[in-house]
């Protein structure tokens, strides 16, 4: 088990290395750079000034030097400094990551709980009205883009019903309170969750249907156990196993989704930071973002493997 983890981590190193190269290439291939991004008609900058700024940011050095410098930074545990405000990228991400993780975590959890429950229900009601309506609902859920879901939710719950705040992470200027934060969290989380809940539902349904045909279910029934036990103890536990994978795969897409959702709901996470960074050509931040997400995703995959071995005694890594 341990050696498996070590092995995975070792294999992760070259992967991450590849990631750095690609993301560096992308970040520097973008048209314009941090300096040009700051120029505006109100305050046009002279050639000299531009040159000087490039000098400050080290943008005048050859690319491979810039890359090596960056790698050096990484090896020292920090991710370089933002071109925009000169702050350490690690620090900036450190501040914002929790908010994004809160958003994603709640969304993922909600999606999982709701999706799985409905999926199991519709599997148990296969070919009945419940099943059909749930499946259809699921499909509709899958076909509404995150951003539009977001708008609809704001329109309904913030503007029409006035139940929930339309944006932000908490009421500005008030001392932070969980309840207040949760009120702000509901809409963006829902916008992210609904789409994925639908996906979980589909897999849960498929998984449960598969399990229902297993002969150990027949055995359980033959023992004369009550239906609830048969379904929950013998069925669900097995049906959940394949969902672990879906869980792992959902994560990268969630990062993507959070970029959009954070923009719509002004959620001050790393997604919002990323969009700004792209506009400002703040390459250290862009690269830091992708690197961090990549690492998180890798760790998540590792966690997925662990979850397997926990859920399924047959699985053992060596």
């Amino acid at each position: 088990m341990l050696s498996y983890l070590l092995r995975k981590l070792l294999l992760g190193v070259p992967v991450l290395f590849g990631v750095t190269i690609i993301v560096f290439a992308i970040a520097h291939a973008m048209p314009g750079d941090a300096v040009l991004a700051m120029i505006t008609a109100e305050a046009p900058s002279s050639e000299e000034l531009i040159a000087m700024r490039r000098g400050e940011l080290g943008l005048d050095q050859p690319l491979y030097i810039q890359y090596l410098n960056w790698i050096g930074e990484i090896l020292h545990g920090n991710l370089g400094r933002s071109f925009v405000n000169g702050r350490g990228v690690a620090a900036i991400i450190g501040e914002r990551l929790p908010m994004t993780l809160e958003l994603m975590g709640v969304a993922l959890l909600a999606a999982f709980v709701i999706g799985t429950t409905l999926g199991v229900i519709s599997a148990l009601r296969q070919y009945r009205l419940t099943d059909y309506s749930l499946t259809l609902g699921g499909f509709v859920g899958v076909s509404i883009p995150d951003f539009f879901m977001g708008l609809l939710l704001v329109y309904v719950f913030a503007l029409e019903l006035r139940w929930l705040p339309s944006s932000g992470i908490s009421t500005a200027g008030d001392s932070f309170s969980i309840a207040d934060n949760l009120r702000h969290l509901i809409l963006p989380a829902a916008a992210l969750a609904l789409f994925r809940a639908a996906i979980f539902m589909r897999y849960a349904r498929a998984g449960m249907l598969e399990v229902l045909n297993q002969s150990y279910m027949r055995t359980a029934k033959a023992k004369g156990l009550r239906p609830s036990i048969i379904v929950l103890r013998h069925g669900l536990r097995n049906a959940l196993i394949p969902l672990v994978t879906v869980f792992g795969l959902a994560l990268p897409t969630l990062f993507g989704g959070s970029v959009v959702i954070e923009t719509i709901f002004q959620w001050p996470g790393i997604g919002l930071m990323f969009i700004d960074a792209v506009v400002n050509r703040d390459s250290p931040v862009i690269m830091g973002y992708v690197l961090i997400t990549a690492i998180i995703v890798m760790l998540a995959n590792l966690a997925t493997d662990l979850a397997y071995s926990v859920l399924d005694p047959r699985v053992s890594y060596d």
Partner: protein
Amino acid sequence: MRRTDTLTRDRPEMVGQGPLLSVQGLSVEFGPSGNSVYAVNDVSFDLAEGESLAIVGESGSGKSVTVQTLMGLIRKPPGRVTSGRALFRGRDLLTIPDSELRHIRGRDIAMIFQDPMSSLNPVLTIGLQLTEALREHQGLSEKQAERQALDMLDLVGIANAAQRMQAFPHQFSGGQLQRIGIAMALVCKPSILIADEPTTALDVTIQAQIVELVARLQKELGMAIIWISHDLSLVAGFVERVAVMYAGSLVETAPVERLFAAPTHPYTIGLLNSIPSLTAANTRLVPIKGAPPNVMLPPTFCAFAPRCDHAVSRCREAKPVLEPVVSGHAAACWRWRELHGVSRVPAAAVATDRASKAAPNEPLLTVFGLKVHFPIRRGVLRRQVGAVRAVDGVSFEVLRGETLALVGESGCGKSTTGRAVLGLERPSEGEIRFEGKDYADASGERAKERRRDMQMVFQNPFGSLNPRMTVGRIIGEGLRAQKIGTRASREARVSELLALVGLREPLRDRYPFELSGGQRQRVGIARALAGSPKFIIADEPISALDVSIQAQIVNLLDDLKARLGLTYLFIGHDLSMIRYLSDRVAVMYLGRIVETGTTASVFGTPMHPYTRALLSAIPVPDPKAGGTRRRIVLGGGVPDPSKPPSGCHFHPRCPKATEICARVAPEPRDFSSSNAAQHIVTCHHAGEA
């Protein structure tokens, strides 16, 4: 002794009443009416307290559906009970609501299933799975339940049960799992145990263990048993009554001795004829012709008629019902009176010429010191830490024109050996000489050459044919691959082959999924023969087939051998079949050959303890023998081939083992009585009294 007091069961109200279970006119269909499958048609039988009944039939005969219906285990939909009653202690199992039936399931009627691996929940400890029924039906506390479960595990012979309670199914061997399955079924001491082919997935030696166990437990617990099986010989040993099913209908039922002595229904007769008997060897098998029935047709006629030699027009017009032949013996055949007493083996039976054939001594294939090891990699850097010694030093010869049978239990390495000979596995060591040329690590031209001379018939009639190729293309593949002949000539050859294996031309354009198991296996054979090889490796070619079909394939192989002068390496585990069709036998255990010799000598005077155990475990299609024959039942199962026991691999299970066996691996020694064929045994104690 603690066990008895927990196990003694007294149900006074039961004593001396009518049948415990009475099934009357049960019919079950699947799928929407219109194009439904008629799985069970008007089946009736009684089961008395403590009686043991066997329901025997081939796949699709409806035997399992019948009992699962009683337990309320078939899925509805698509299943539908269209008629019948099943009275258990006066209550109709078919009509009472599931909420009630639930309390009978597991408590009064329990069941064990075919595949122990898949019928236990992989993610729950066996402890939990054992106790939950107790807690459900007897409302026991966790403690009490565990105690009873433990007793049960002891009873079914699971060593140090206490710890094993925490283990998960995948940590047990198949045999152990089936024992656990049995324990699980018996915890509540049911009055009926239904065993649905509980040994089919197991090796013969293990099968023997299980059969013994169940027989013993039945006596101890005095319960009634319904044993579902496809193997007449297996049940012959220990049941009182047999009911034969075909295409969803009961065709004959009788006390076991009588059924074997005076079978009345043509199907029963056919079945018995297609089983080679250990006693009467060398008589050509008489298979039941044709393929399994089409259960899509409504049961308005005798379903066996298409395959019946005695069928008359009436059989195709009306469905016969069970008529008593003598008391306790009934058959469902319009012509039972005429056929009654017809001898089991019809005059048609021809003696095979195998006995007479003088075996030429020139070896065609010589395998020497063959080893096939699969590396086991572990750790961060995937270093090799060991190897699965699938084949661990195997030597044998196959003489031109003979059939050498390679026998052994699953995992003994017999298939790997076969594949290595053909070059499908790369040997780690050893020689493979075919007609003098060493092919051990042949590649390129040499490999091609080998393929022209040797071919293989595979075990799984489903997996061995590409589902997306037509029969024609499958058969022709070898010809295309080896660029033999022109397009036209290949087409011609394919037709030729189809005829040769007894398939009709139109099948050429069919896909495997449209064929029956027997037909697929014929296609497999034709494919192997395409390049007209000299040597055929048949890897368990019949074990996946129904009894009545097995005989067809065996005969086909026999005929082809005669007609084309082939040489066979026949890999299998069904000893009775092997005895019937092989000239010489090599017995394998854990990657090594323990005994080699002519079929006669090995079966006649087995010398290796393992061979003896193996032979003694073979079920005999003869009720009387059942009682008399002494069985050597081996303890435990086959060890893990990655860490085989020291010295003689067999010593941990060997009744004769002494300390030397644990230290020194025995050398092969010849014990041939005559100077004729050798009889080589690899055992320190061979030959001792």
